C-alpha cells in the first residue's frame, strides 16, 4: 500500500468553535443575498475583497494556461467598488428582468475551514447550488464551488477573497447577474 495520505491538502483544521462560526456566517450570507439585502451583504465583505470567477478551461491537460498564447478570462473580476455597483444596480428598481422579483435560493454545503499562516485568516472551501427562478417557469440551477479567505475582525467575520468555480463552459442562462 502507498504511504499514508494526508487527507486535507489545504491546511490544519480550525478549532470547532471557529468552524461553527464560519458555517453560521456562510449560511447567514446566503440568506442575506436570497433576501436581496445587498447593503447587509456588502457589510460582510472586507473592502479589499478580490472576487473572481474564472472561465473553466476546456483544453487538453497538456495545454494548461501559460503553455499557450490564449490567456484566461474572468467572468467576475471585481473589487469592492464594482460589487457595490452591481448591488446598486439591483436597487435602482429599473432592472426590468427582476420585476416581478427573481427568486434566488442558495444552498451552501461541504464547508471546510482551515488555518492559514495568518492566525486571523481562514481558508474556507464550500460548495453551492444557486437556484434562480422567475416568472412561470424560468428556473435555472447553478452548482459550483468556492474558495474563500475569511478574516476574523473586531467587527466579526469578513470575506477578504472569494474565487468561484462554476464548471459551465457555456453558460446556459440569460445572465449570471447574481452573487455567488
Amino acid at each position, binding site marked *: 500500500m502507498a504511504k499514508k495520505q494526508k487527507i486535507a491538502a489545504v491546511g490544519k483544521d480550525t478549532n470547532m468553535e471557529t468552524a461553527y462560526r464560519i458555517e453560521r456566517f456562510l449560511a447567514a450570507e446566503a440568506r442575506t443575498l436570497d433576501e436581496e439585502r445587498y447593503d447587509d451583504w456588502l457589510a460582510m465583505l472586507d473592502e479589499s475583497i478580490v472576487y473572481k470567477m474564472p472561465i473553466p478551461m476546456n483544453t487538453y491537460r497538456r495545454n494548461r494556461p501559460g503553455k*499557450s498564447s490564449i*490567456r484566461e478570462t474572468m*467572468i467576475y473580476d471585481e473589487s469592492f467598488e464594482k460589487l457595490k*455597483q452591481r448591488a*446598486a*444596480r439591483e436597487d*435602482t428598481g429599473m*432592472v426590468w428582468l427582476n420585476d416581478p422579483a427573481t427568486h434566488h435560493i442558495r444552498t451552501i454545503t461541504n464547508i471546510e475551514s482551515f488555518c492559514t499562516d495568518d492566525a486571523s485568516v481562514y481558508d474556507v472551501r464550500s460548495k453551492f447550488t444557486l437556484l434562480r427562478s422567475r416568472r412561470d417557469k424560468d428556473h435555472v440551477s447553478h452548482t459550483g464551488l468556492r474558495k474563500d479567505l475569511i478574516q476574523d475582525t473586531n467587527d466579526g467575520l469578513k470575506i477578504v477573497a472569494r474565487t468561484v468555480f462554476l464548471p459551465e463552459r457555456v453558460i446556459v442562462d440569460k*445572465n449570471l*447577474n447574481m452573487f455567488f
Partner: protein
Amino acid sequence: MGHDSQIPEAGDFLRTYMGEDDVIVVRGEDGEVRAFLNACSHRGNKVCHAEWGKTKAFTCSYHGWAYDNMGELAAVPLEEAIYDNLDRSKLGLVPVARVQNYKGMIFGTFAEEGPDLEEYLGDMKYYLDVVLDASPEGMELIGTPFRVEIRGNWKLPVENAIGDGYHVAWAHAGAMRVVGTIGQGRGESVLGIGKDNTGFDDSGQMQVAIPPHTVLSTLDGQSGYALYDNPGPCIEYLEQVRPSVVERLGDVRGTQLLGSETHMGVFPNLQIIQGLNLLRVIHPKGPGSFEVATYSMADKNTPDEVKDIIVKHVGQTFGSAGILEGDDGDFTEAITHSPNGYATRQMKGWLGMAQGRTMDWDGPGDASPGIVNELCQREFYTQWQRTMLAESVSDILPEQSAQKESANG
C-alpha cells in the same frame, strides 16, 4: 472563425462553429491557417474536444485515427493488418472550402464559388480598418471568449447589437444608472440620450448601410468610452495615437470614427464594437437557440494598463455576468417565443424608424442621422431575405451601388 492573434504558432488551434458545424481552425506545421470539419473520416466522431491549444495531431478517441495539423490522415491503428487498400491521402479531414484572411481576421465559407472575402466585405473594409489597421501591428483578441447560450433566434441579438440604439437607455436603465458617464456623475446624458430616457440629441451621429453590412457610430471620436467608469487612461492613449491614425487612415476615420461608439455589423453574425472594444459572434443553434461568443479586443500596441481596463470593462458590461448583457437575453427570448401562439404569429413587428431620413457623410455607404434609428436593422433583415431567396451564391450580394466619390476620407 477567429483571428491570427489567437493561433500565432504552428500547431496552435481553436474550435468554433460555422452555423451548427463544429470546425477546427489550425495553423499547420507549414504556418498556413486551415479549417476543417471536426468529424473523423472513419465514423464521424469528433477528432478534437478541446476548445483551443497546440498540437501536432488530432487523434480520434473512437478507433485512434490520427490527423496531422494540416488535416492529412497520418496514422491508422493496425493499418497493414486490417485494411488491404486504404488510401489515406483521400481520408483527410474535410476542409472548409475557402479560408481567407482580412488583416488578421480569419473567415471561412463552405461555398466553393461566390464572392471572395475582399469582394464580400467591399466598402466595409473602410470601417473595419479603423479597428484592424489603426497601427501597423493591428488588432488582437484577448483571452478566451465568454460563451452564453440563450433560447432565442440568432437574428435578434445580431440586429440588437448592430443597430438598436433605441433600447440602450431604457432596457439597460438599471445599469446606466450605475456605470460610466451617468453612474459616475460625469454627465446627465449618455450617447445623446438623457438620464431618464428623455431629451435626445442625435446631432453628429449616424447609421450607415454598406450592404450587406452596417455601421452605427456617434462620430464624436471618444464616446466609445462613455460606459467606462474610469476612461481616463483609455482616452489619453486614444489621443496619443490619434495623429498617427489620422496620417494612416485620413481625417474622417482618424477624427470622427476612431474612439467613437461604433458598432460594425458584418453580415451575417459578426459584430465588432469599438469603444466597448468587444467582438461578438452569434452562432445559431437551430431556430430557437443561439450561442454568443464575446471577445475583448484591442490594438496590439495598447499599453497593458489600458488593455486591463478594457478586459475588465468587457467582463463587467458584456461578459457572461455583464450587467448590460443580461438584460438583452430576456426580450430576445420573449420575441422568439411570442409567435408560438397562432394569433400572435399573425402580427407584424415594426422597424420603420427614420425611414427616408438621409444625411451627408464623407465615408462610403448611405447614411441616416442618429444612432436611435432602425436603418441597420432593416438592412440586416433585407440582406437575410436576399440571402434566403438567392438562387445561387452569386446572388447573395446586393447589386453594386455606385461608389461614392469621396470614399477615401
